[in-house]
């Protein structure tokens, strides 16, 4: 006899799952009981289910394998919602298994009941409510298949308590998924690929915009080879940073709202724009009507619903971008660098990323990131949270390979960084992992510090503390007449009316005290308040054998530039000089 819970854990083993992020509770007791005697699967108890979901997400982004989390019904399950939506928007393969009340009381508002199949429907690639134990093996097989194939995404599986406890006489884990209605695209249409090859031959000013699809397809090396053969400059979105090494001469950087000038100019001036595994998000395109006005648009994506969604596409190609690149390679002749390559190169040289750190001035966040590059080993995985520090990281971190920069792109989820870094670290034991975060973001999942300490997850936490919600503050400064409504994290009731956002006489009272928080959670904490202390703190933090937190008190009024105001064309760039 095999119980539903045993079938479930057996399925995880057969799917190659080695880590599960979870949180137990009433209806999943029987499943956790099986895990108690399953040494092959490491179960990491997070302190909140949202963190379990982000940790599974970070694990999946870093390793390319499917992340798994396991939670109880009701609040345990609803706490995963943000994490699932986050994984959906960035196409991350995830299987979220939630317990559910017994089938006999489904729909009666039983204790800790929430309709998870319903709640997850719009934010997951697919969701299941298991209604018979006989269905469980096939549902699990299908879930893993759906999560990782085609355009990857999260799948939610809701398992009622009586189904986990039910017994089956005999049971075989299926070899194949059974989802006839689901046929993800494979190879691209040869005629369409031929059209793209012709367009490349005709183009004077071609450019490639590569997105997260390149990472999902494992096609970064093919992309670089193709770009080199055709001498086409490449911009990579936030999700694809690392696909082209950032010192490559064809690399334009990240385009968009906080993109590199050269990347934005290239997208606006090109006559052939080849989107590969990207969805032309509004943060990339700015004002759609004025985007790439003279370009023929070619778009390669595995998800047909992305093609034509935002842009009128002349050459649509539905297919796996790796396979399309391979086919395209056979049809395209080498292309020599031309005047366009020279112009694009010049844009990069005329508009480099820069900052000026005054030795006696306040610490600049860009400077800290630059020094993190110095102290971090070459193979370090960097996770970020969301906000100014995220954009500075995207711009200033050295990107050398795919799956080494983990950031919440589509959803922009504050609180993603620390648990995602934990997941990455568990996916690659021994490989250094750093999370660059802000004082706002870290507090959204700061409860995971003991998880790092107790499980010896050696994540290095770099907190760029500017004592405010910097990105929102930046928008308030630029677009809301400096009305700093609720963005100062030092604000007390008595400061309200008078403060213009940054007062010389502001009491130097930062809460929480991150160094003491770190120490209270069993890891060393270090703080730099002066430029001269930055290297010292990084050296100490990186030397710790285990997790460590490093706090940098950075300049509050520093803004992220370049910046394209929301809804403007992406060549309408504020280069900005911070006060």
């Amino acid at each position, binding site marked *: 006899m095999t119980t539903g819970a045993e079938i479930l854990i057996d399925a995880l083993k057969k799917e190659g799952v080695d880590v599960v992020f979870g949180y137990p509770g009433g209806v999943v007791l029987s499943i956790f009981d099986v895990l108690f005697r399953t040494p092959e699967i490491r179960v990491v108890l997070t302190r909140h289910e949202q963190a379990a979901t982000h940790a599974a997400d970070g694990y999946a982004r870093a390793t390319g394998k499917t992340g798994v989390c396991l939670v109880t019904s009701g609040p345990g399950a609803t706490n995963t919602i943000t994490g699932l939506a986050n994984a959906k928007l960035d196409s991350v393969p995830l299987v979220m298994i939630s317990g559910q009340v017994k089938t006999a009381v489904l729909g009666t508002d039983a204790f800790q009941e929430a309709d998870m199949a319903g709640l997850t*429907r719009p934010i997951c690639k697919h969701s299941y*409510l298991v209604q018979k134990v006989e269905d469980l093996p096939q549902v699990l097989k299908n879930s893993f298949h759906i999560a990782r194939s085609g355009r990857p995404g999260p799948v939610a599986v809701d398992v009622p308590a009586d189904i986990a406890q039910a017994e089956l006489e005999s049971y075989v884990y299926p070899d194949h998924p059974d989802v006839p209605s689901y046929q993800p695209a494979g190879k691209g249409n040869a005629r369409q690929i031929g059209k793209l090859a012709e367009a490349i031959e005709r183009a004077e000013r071609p450019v490639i915009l590569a997105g997260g699809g390149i990472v999902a397809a494992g096609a970064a090396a093919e992309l670089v080879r193709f770009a080199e053969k055709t001498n086409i400059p490449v911009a990579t979105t936030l999700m694809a940073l690392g696909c082209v090494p950032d010192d490559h001469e064809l690399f334009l950087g990240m385009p968009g709202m906080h993109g590199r000038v050269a990347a934005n100019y290239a997208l606006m001036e090109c006559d052939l724009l080849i989107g590969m595994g990207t969805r032309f998000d509004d943060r990339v395109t700015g004002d759609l009507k004025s985007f790439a006005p003279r370009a023929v648009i070619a778009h390669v994506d595995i*998800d047909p*619903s992305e093609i034509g969604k935002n842009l009128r596409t002349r050459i649509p190609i539905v297919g796996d971008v790796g396979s399309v690149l391979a086919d395209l390679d056979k049809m395209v002749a080498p292309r020599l660098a031309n005047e366009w390559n020279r112009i694009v190169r010049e844009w990069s040289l005329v508009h480099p990323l820069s900052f000026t750190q005054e030795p006696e001035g306040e610490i600049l966040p860009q400077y800290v990131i630059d020094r993190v590059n110095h102290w971090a080993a070459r193979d370090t995985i960097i996770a970020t949270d969301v906000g100014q520090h995220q954009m500075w990281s995207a711009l200033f971190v050295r990107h050398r390979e795919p799956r080494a920069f983990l950031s919440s792109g589509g959803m922009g989820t504050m609180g993603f960084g620390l648990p995602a870094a934990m997941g990455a670290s568990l996916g690659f034991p021994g490989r250094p992992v750093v999370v660059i975060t802000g004082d706002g973001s870290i507090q959204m999942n700061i409860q995971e510090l003991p998880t790092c300490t107790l499980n010896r997850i050696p994540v290095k936490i770099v907190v760029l503390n500017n004592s405010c919600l910097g990105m929102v503050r930046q928008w308030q400064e630029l677009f809301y007449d400096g009305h700093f409504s609720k963005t100062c994290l030092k604000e007390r009731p008595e400061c309200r009316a008078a403060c213009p956002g940054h007062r010389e006489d502001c009491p130097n009272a930062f809460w929480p005290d991150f160094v003491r928080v770190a120490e209270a959670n069993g890891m060393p904490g270090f703080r730099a308040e002066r430029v001269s202390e930055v290297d010292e703190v990084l050296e100490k933090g990186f030397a710790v054998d285990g997790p460590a937190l490093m706090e940098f008190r950075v300049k509050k009024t520093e803004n992220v530039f370049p910046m394209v105001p929301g809804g403007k064309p992406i060549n309408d760039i504020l280069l900005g000089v911070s006060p």
Partner: protein
Amino acid sequence: MTEKHTFVITVANRVGVLARISGLLSSRGFNIESVVACQTENPDVYQIQLVIYGTSDQVQQISKQIQKLIDTIKVVDIPHRKGDPIREFILVKIPARRDRSEILDLVGVFGAKIVDCSPSSMTIDLSGPSRKIDQFLEMMKPFGIREYIRSGPIAVGA
């Protein structure tokens, strides 16, 4: 320009499949004009017909999004144009104590059928293009319609 479209959607017969499709439309701010859904000749396959208004870009995007759902087997988009075999069904219940012969004349003219008759009411069954249904309802108004139920347009893909 917004146009009326019928989507003929073939899906796997699973719990929640209709909710998935209606949720997809509501999340994009679309109102469903009508929906007809039932099992097909194959009990594992379910067919949903729904009518929405939208521009051709919107309708194309929605069609792709519905196609993307894991349970969707096929989506056929039928724009409502003159002459297409798009039909609606209606059951109309009218109080009929006195004007029976006049009602029967109209039933004959429209090619409708009486499916139920009682001393105080008649129930009439009619199918046809939406315009014909509208006209019939207009003609029945003077008799005082007690209740009616319309199926919404249904179509068969070309």
